[in-house]
């Protein structure tokens, strides 16, 4: 395996340990129209795999002013099949063009038999699935020429075949591949509540030494056929109080980490999204001050 280029090692705009938001076309004009207090933006690279047009125009202008993170949704690293070589090659071209400081993907699969399901589907956590995921991450880091981060998913079902926990799986993955982790605290919360577990215990077991980015998002609260709470990772509203509390706890433990607000359904006006990001910045600052005091 070749040596991986560490985060931001191109010396250009590494992601600051402050809040960013997921970039959506609805907000291009707001972001480009006035200086923003935000430190960075994140995009789904799949939304920019086109030849030209207004999206590239806006992204190039934003990239000239802010560091970017790419958050892939198409590699399907948890698939039984190897990552799609064409997709990797297209991502590499986009990475070379925009030089994002981070590239992340998911502990999930989304393609099978040549068909793309456009959702983050779950996998059992076993030695076999771990070995396969490791080789897919190795192959991806090789093809993209850099370290990637892997995100913990929101889960609605679990597998009887699983014989290790998700934090154990991610820890070994990071150790074996040199990848970093993206800790999605909303996902940790959603999964824990859906399986009637304690989110604090999940986070206590999470291999935080490998975490290079945090995601925060809103979720929808439904109930299942038996009337039990069922949380859906909907990204359709503000971050809930319980997730903010878990976030503060993790920042206190880990120190400041680049933190992204994901809100991509029922899109808010720009000021509302900015407000969420500034809440994360406030917590980062309070915990910095507390650590110094």
């Amino acid at each position, binding site marked *: 395996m070749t040596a991986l280029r560490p985060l931001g090692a191109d010396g250009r705009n590494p992601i600051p340990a402050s809040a960013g938001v997921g970039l959506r076309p609805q907000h291009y004009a707001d972001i480009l129209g006035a200086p923003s207090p935000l430190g960075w933006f994140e995009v789904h690279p799949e939304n920019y*795999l086109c030849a030209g047009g207004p999206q590239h*125009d806006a992204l190039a202008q934003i990239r000239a002013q802010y560091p970017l993170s790419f958050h892939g949704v198409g*590699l399907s690293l948890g698939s039984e099949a190897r990552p799609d070589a064409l997709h990797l090659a297209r991502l590499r071209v986009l990475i070379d063009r925009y030089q994002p400081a981070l590239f992340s993907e998911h502990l999930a699969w989304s393609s099978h038999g040549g068909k*793309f399901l*456009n959702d983050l589907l779950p996998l059992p956590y076993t030695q076999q699935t771990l070995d396969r995921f490791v080789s897919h991450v190795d192959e991806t880091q090789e093809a993209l020429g850099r370290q990637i981060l892997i995100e913990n998913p929101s889960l609605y*079902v679990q597998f009887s075949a699983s014989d290790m926990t998700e934090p154990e799986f991610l820890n070994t993955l990071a150790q074996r591949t040199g990848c970093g982790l993206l800790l999605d605290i909303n996902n940790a919360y959603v999964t824990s509540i859906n399986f009637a577990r304690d989110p604090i215990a999940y986070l206590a077991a999470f291999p935080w030494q490998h975490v290079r980015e945090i995601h925060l998002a809103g979720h929808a609260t439904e109930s299942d056929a038996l009337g039990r709470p*069922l949380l859906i990772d909907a990204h359709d509203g503000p971050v809930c109080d319980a997730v903010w509390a878990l976030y503060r706890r993790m920042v206190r433990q880990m120190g400041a980490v680049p933190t992204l607000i994901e809100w991509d359904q029922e899109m808010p006006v720009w000021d509302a999204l900015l407000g969420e990001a500034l809440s994360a910045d406030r917590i980062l600052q309070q915990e910095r001050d507390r650590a110094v005091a």
Partner: protein
Amino acid sequence: MPSRETMQASFAAAIWAPERDVPAGISPQRNFAVYRNNVYAGLIKSLQARFPVVQRLVGDEFFARCAGIFVERQPPLSPVMMEYGADFPGFLAAFEPIRHLPYLAPVAELEWQYHVAQHGPDAQPLDTAALATLPLAEMDRLTFSLHPTCHILASPYPILSIWRTNTFDTVTQEIAAGSPGETVMLVRPHNVVLLLPLTDGIDVFVTHLQQGTALAEAAALAQAASTRFDLAGALALLFRVQALSGFHAINAQNGNSDVS
């Protein structure tokens, strides 16, 4: 669970075919529906975003059912969702329940081409100063490159009128049955896709220019198609919307070519 089928094969099959049993080995089984809903809702939503005029024409509920059937029959084959939906107009054209609405598929094709133009390659407009320096004698033999997003769509239905009123008007204008068909040129010279009706032979003219026919010959063919063809007006239109991105002059004396 059949032993030969992998977990992902049975999981994926149960998502695409709702009549299939929920795969074994997962719990709670009742939550499998969340994934099925997410997959269908997400793909239908992407089609809604791509074909808003078709959705307005048939109504939200019918569109969702239609799109759901399309998703089941022709799921995406690429993880790049902006490439999904190219086959939707063709699906609509063959979809029995809307056989009485034959303009839907052509309108869907216009919406798809709008999307293609939106994300197509960028190009500089033609250098008019360089063009002006050419001797008049060479004009007849000029050929042009059109902007790479330039696309011409001809339909027996008034697709642009339908698209416009359903895109911009709160209360749509009525378009009489039997209204003449329209030929539309789409082009995105900068960041905005322009849609222009092409009439009076201009469609023939532009189509030939796009195929590399020299100026004089393209004009003659357009003239033959419509006696109302006006070359000066046609060129003025193409310059105004920056549909031309380059020209290729052939020197009448020595056959050398010059590209700009």
